[in-house]
């Protein structure tokens, strides 16, 4: 098992939902509630030291429920390995999760993009507004129920 999975099993046993290995990559599915604590632990613990956030991807699994998810890809320069952290958001009507900007500054634009494209709210984000679409745009274009050629 990867160091990240071990660490989370040890420190947040109730939060870890599933650990999967696919094509040499580790994906850890966690509950959304304590995402900031989990990210901080992964960043600061010497065994993992994921000090670099590669990307945040908003996910829309329509017609499944829970519908929305967020994936975080982390990299450790020390161990030269990666881990994907994934969480499914409980509220399908207005999905929200705590912002990880306090953990990595780079999360700022990633979260703005996920908000703009998927309509996922990041609680505590310092500046959550649209980033790619115009400010007065209605709807979130990358949702699965948003038509390809616009509304």
């Amino acid at each position, binding site marked *: 098992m990867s160091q990240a999975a071990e660490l989370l099993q040890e420190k947040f046993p109730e939060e870890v939902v599933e650990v999967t290995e696919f*094509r040499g990559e580790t994906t850890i599915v966690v509950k959304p509630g304590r995402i900031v604590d989990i990210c901080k632990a992964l960043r600061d613990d010497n065994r993992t030291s994921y000090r*670099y956030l590669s*990307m945040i991807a908003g996910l829309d699994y329509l017609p499944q429920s829970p519908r929305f998810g967020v994936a975080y890809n982390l990299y450790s320069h020390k161990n030269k390995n990666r881990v994907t952290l994934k969480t499914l958001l409980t509220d399908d009507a207005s999905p929200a999760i705590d912002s990880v900007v306090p953990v*990595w500054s780079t999360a*700022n634009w990633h979260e703005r993009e996920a908000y703009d494209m998927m309509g996922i709210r990041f609680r505590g984000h310092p500046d959550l507004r649209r980033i*790619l679409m115009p400010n007065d745009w209605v709807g979130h274009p*990358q949702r699965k129920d948003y038509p*390809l050629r616009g509304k």
Partner: protein
Amino acid sequence: MKRTETMLLNLGPSHPSTHGVLRVLLELDGELILRADPDIGYLHRGIEKMCEYRTYHRCMPLMNRLDYLAGEVNLFGFCLAMEKLLGIEVPKRAQYIRVMLAELTRIASHLFWLGTHGHDLGAMTPLFYAFREREKIMDLCEMVSGARMFPLYFRIGGLAADLPEAFIPAAWEFVKSFPEKHQDYHSLLTKNEIWIERTKDVGVMTADEALDWGWSGPMARGSGINWDLRRDNPYSSYEEFDFVVPLGKNGDTYDRYLVRMEEMLQANRIVRQALEKLADTPPGDIKAKDSRVSLPPKDAVYNDIAGLINHFKLIQEGITPPVGEVYQCIEAPKGEMGFYIVSDGSPQPFRLKIRGPSFINLSAMDKLARGRLLADSIALIGTMDIVLADVDR
């Protein structure tokens, strides 16, 4: 009566130094920048969304159009992600050719950066020299595929075709002459007093800050982060190549300039090694022999029912990878270019997330610009080496 108020200034959206369509809203106190807010999205084409409605094969032209100055490198990353998802190993010859084209593209991209960055800061001449060599690389791209900017030469599982005969001698000629041409650029800028004044101690980022802001590639290495995906997480046989990863010390614009300059020479070394390695591989061995991605030989299509069905399925339906999620990244000229593919087993990606290096590098604009002078903002945009098509996707 004395009035004190700050001024808002629009830099862009169409300004020659914004390298595309970028608008930066600057709050100024005199010439001092108090706040810089990049406004992006002018080139947003919704590539991630479009891909969800296309077969994997039809996604590929769009990948070329992400960072259009290094078109083939983006496609490289996408193909590698797909091959990881499918569990395919590409023949050595195809791997070497991919490495060679990726490194040539890196040189072309860095040359474009050098020319425009210099030009933005008032050094007119480097542009002409840089474009002279870039043109040769464009010619090489044209040779393999017929197109200069968007070769679309890589395929999932290998390459579209083997190299044409004339390519190898032309590539050798470029590789041999490049180090000398590279000296020209050095002699124009490296010890140029104006250049040093404009770039030294401008846009300083410490290693810790660079990590926090998710910087990768030459941007991170300029701050002294010893990290290169080609060396640390090798793909496509990069572990067989010998190259040095140049590092900066101060994390300023000048150090990033030196890092990219040296990277061009190192890329040239890799191309040279790839050309040597190519000579030992069997010609024509450029596609994985896997019926999920490669069309069967014509003989099998005409004479064998299984071959015919295979051909029909691949053309009509497309490539169908297994259910799963992968993230694959490569060392693109501008940093870490990543592709996160969520597959539901259908011929279209369920979700494709592209991690463009320009997008991340630009997000630190406010941090770099605060407290600097207005003129420095031009140096900062140049040093970030952004391509707006990659920022907006």
